[in-house]
């Protein structure tokens, strides 16, 4: 494969997988949120939970659908663009992705049908059970994906056959790899935090508009409450991910830190412009000793720089360096918002603090940005390897693909993804804007709302002006 085709293949994979991850990052958390709402509705019988459930189920449906269709592409791309990777590591990656699709994809897709269309057709307990199965499916799905990706970050439990095939020798080493058990919680928490902020932002939005008082208060309280606990946990787990990177992928760690030379004690570059031609940082602001403290929990430890690695084994620096800092910045911002917001709710003052509500409303993309930049850090930092230390990206690609072929498919995917992303986001926006309207208002014989998303009566933002029956008056 020529270098242009390789670069285009990488762009195509990065683009499709980034597009894909946005939706699971959202739906993994939303599925759990739906379980909570349905459970609360069953226990308390308060219609507000049912309205919230129906509202978020509609949004879940769109995000889930986009996640499924963009996920199908991932199941094929290993073979189409990375045939050498799949030929050589298929004996390990294949079974892991097989478990992903078997235990998770099948579970999600089948019970999703019940979730969307089956409310009137199944007993209540089975409906709740279906919610839980969908949530379990999305969680298991991310688990297997993280096992697979963690094996690519730190390959264990295999031997190389004479023909260069990676043959599994120890599956428990692969599944119970310490790398999996920091990166999987990291991803799961990222998904929950992302969803929590979307829920809180929606609550803030409707509170600002003065609509859906009961619903928006619940969304704000639960969303921020969850985030207030999970964001600090995420920072802690994130630190553990950094620890494994420091020990097992030192070149990636050096790139994230933009540390070009070995240092003892090492300083921490807070912000700079890493210059790959001069192999140094321009405009750097750094703190002495902090680098050793973060890397090794010591004020005197030696930290390796990129110069310790052969030039052919060094990852690019700019992307991991900035992506990591953006991720951490989003995390700290979310922590501040969650804690301060929760405090104001506790003091009963949140409704009067418009600027805080506006800030929370505007925070909805933070989780997505943090998730994406986290993945950029992990994946670009792994370069030039596809399987770290064992298989180079240049060796992993399909050898006979030509630039026109990949360019053609890249253009097709760009167009298709732009169209569906624009439409999907627009429809999610319309649903969010309409708010948790009670379905029964529009659907008098409501036993089986087949299409909860069909936007009844949505003529140009009618939602804002509709008056709602008081909670107690609903059935």
């Amino acid at each position, binding site marked *: 494969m020529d270098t242009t085709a390789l670069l285009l293949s990488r762009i195509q994979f990065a683009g499709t997988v980034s597009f894909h991850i946005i939706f699971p990052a959202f739906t993994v958390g939303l599925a759990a949120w739906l379980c909570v709402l349905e459970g609360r509705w069953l226990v308390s019988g308060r219609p507000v939970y049912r309205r919230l459930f129906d509202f978020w189920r509609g949004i879940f449906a769109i995000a889930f659908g986009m996640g499924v269709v963009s996920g199908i592409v991932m199941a094929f791309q290993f073979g189409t663009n990375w045939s050498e990777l799949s030929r050589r590591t298929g*004996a390990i990656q294949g079974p892991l992705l097989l*478990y992903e699709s078997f235990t998770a994809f099948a579970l999600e897709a089948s019970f999703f049908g019940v979730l969307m269309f089956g409310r009137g057709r199944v007993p209540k307990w089975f409906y709740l059970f279906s919610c839980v199965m969908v949530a379990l499916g999305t969680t298991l799905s991310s688990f297997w994906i993280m096992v697979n990706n963690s094996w690519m970050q730190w390959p264990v439990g295999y031997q190389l056959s004479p023909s260069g095939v990676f043959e599994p020798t120890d599956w428990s080493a692969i599944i119970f790899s310490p790398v999996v058990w920091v990166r999987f919680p990291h991803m799961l928490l990222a998904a929950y935090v992302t969803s929590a902020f979307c829920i809180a932002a929606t609550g803030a939005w409707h509170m600002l508009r003065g609509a859906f008082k009961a619903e928006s208060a619940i969304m704000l309280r639960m969303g921020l409450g969850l985030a207030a606990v999970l964001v600090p946990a995420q920072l802690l787990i994130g630190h553990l991910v950094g620890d494994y990177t420091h020990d097992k992928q030192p070149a990636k760690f050096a790139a994230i830190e933009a540390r070009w030379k070995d240092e003892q004690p090492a300083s921490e570059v807070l912000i700079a412009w890493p210059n790959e031609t001069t192999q140094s940082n321009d405009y750097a602001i750094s703190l002495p000793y902090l680098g050793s403290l973060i890397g090794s929990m010591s004020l005197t430890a030696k930290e390796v720089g990129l110069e310790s690695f052969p030039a052919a084994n060094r990852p690019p620096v700019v992307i991991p360096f900035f992506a990591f800092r953006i991720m951490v910045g989003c995390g700290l911002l979310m922590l501040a918002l969650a804690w301060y917001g929760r405090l104001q709710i506790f003091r009963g003052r949140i409704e009067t603090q418009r600027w805080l509500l506006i800030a929370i409303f505007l925070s909805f993309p933070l989780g997505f940005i943090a998730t994406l930049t986290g993945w950029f850090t992990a994946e670009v930092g792994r370069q030039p390897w596809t399987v770290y230390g064992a298989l180079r990206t240049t060796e992993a690609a399909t050898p006979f693909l030509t630039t026109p072929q990949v360019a053609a498919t890249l253009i097709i995917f760009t167009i298709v993804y732009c169209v569906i992303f624009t439409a999907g986001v627009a429809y999610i926006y319309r649903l969010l804007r309409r708010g948790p309207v009670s379905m029964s208002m529009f659907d008098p014989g409501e036993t089986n709302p087949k299409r909860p998303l069909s936007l009844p009566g949505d003529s140009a933002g009618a939602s804002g002006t509709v008056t709602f029956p008081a909670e107690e008056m609903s059935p």
Partner: protein
Amino acid sequence: MTEFWTAALALTILLYVLLDGFDLGVGMLLILMPDERGRRHMLAAIAPVWDGNETWLVLSATVLFGVFPLVYSTLLSAFYLPMMAMLAGLILRGVSFEFREKSRRNRAFWDWCFILGSLVASFIQGMTVGALVKGLPIVDGRYTGSAFSWFSPFAFLCGLGLCLGYALLGAGWLTHKTTQDVQTLAFRLLPRLLGAVLAFLLVIFVYSLTLDLAVMHRWLERPVLFVFPLFGAIVCAAMAFSIQHRRELIPFLCGIAIFAAAFATLAVSFYPYMIPFSVTIAQAAAPQSSQAFIFWGAGIIVLPITVIYTLVVYFVFKGKVTDRESYDDAANSSE
């Protein structure tokens, strides 16, 4: 264990072809139903099951990846452009399903995406099978062809044939699931589609003889193979009879049986090759440690459960589509 996984792969592919076959067929038939209410009935007939159906494609792909990585990497990369076009088609089709409901001005656009996506995906699946039957340039398990080596008039014809076949399944599903004008349309289409599929099979048979395909030699070596076409012919007769008597479910079941017969014909003709006639099952199989790892969990536990809950979902959504069950859109409702 390799035998188990070969059978499991055959099962997942067959289930995919049968299940997504009918909903792709309904997708293509949408073009023949201009009326919005009819379209809603058609879509409602497949709405609860289509994404579950499509899951079998992903399951087939991952079984290939996990158990036969050599076949996975060789075939997907050899069929690079058609695979990508099929994926684009499936994506457009999948999202159109949801988006058409939320759209007011763009509904016609999403309907076209749905119809074309269904058509492209069906056509490419048929063409891929045709290219496999005709034979790909593969040396030592590596594809040696160019970007378009898979293309041939034979493969093109197979693509058209599968579109007709899926449409037949789709029409059969519609007579079973719908009433009124959609059912009437489906009953009108069934005999024509059946005739077209039979004509296609005849053409492809004669064409195969003239091309002197390697597959045809297998038939002389294994006369038992003629059992399947014979079975298929009997089922076709039963189907014609049931259409004439306007039986609602039997045409669909006959369509399933015809596809199963065609699938068995191909599978037995290829055996023991996975890529005819260059890569055998034994050559393609992953090491024992990989197969055992997935056998004890995914193979003997999850796969049967998946089949069972697929059945449960079909059971839950049994019965006819009615106006209440079709997509209600109060603002646009014409009922």
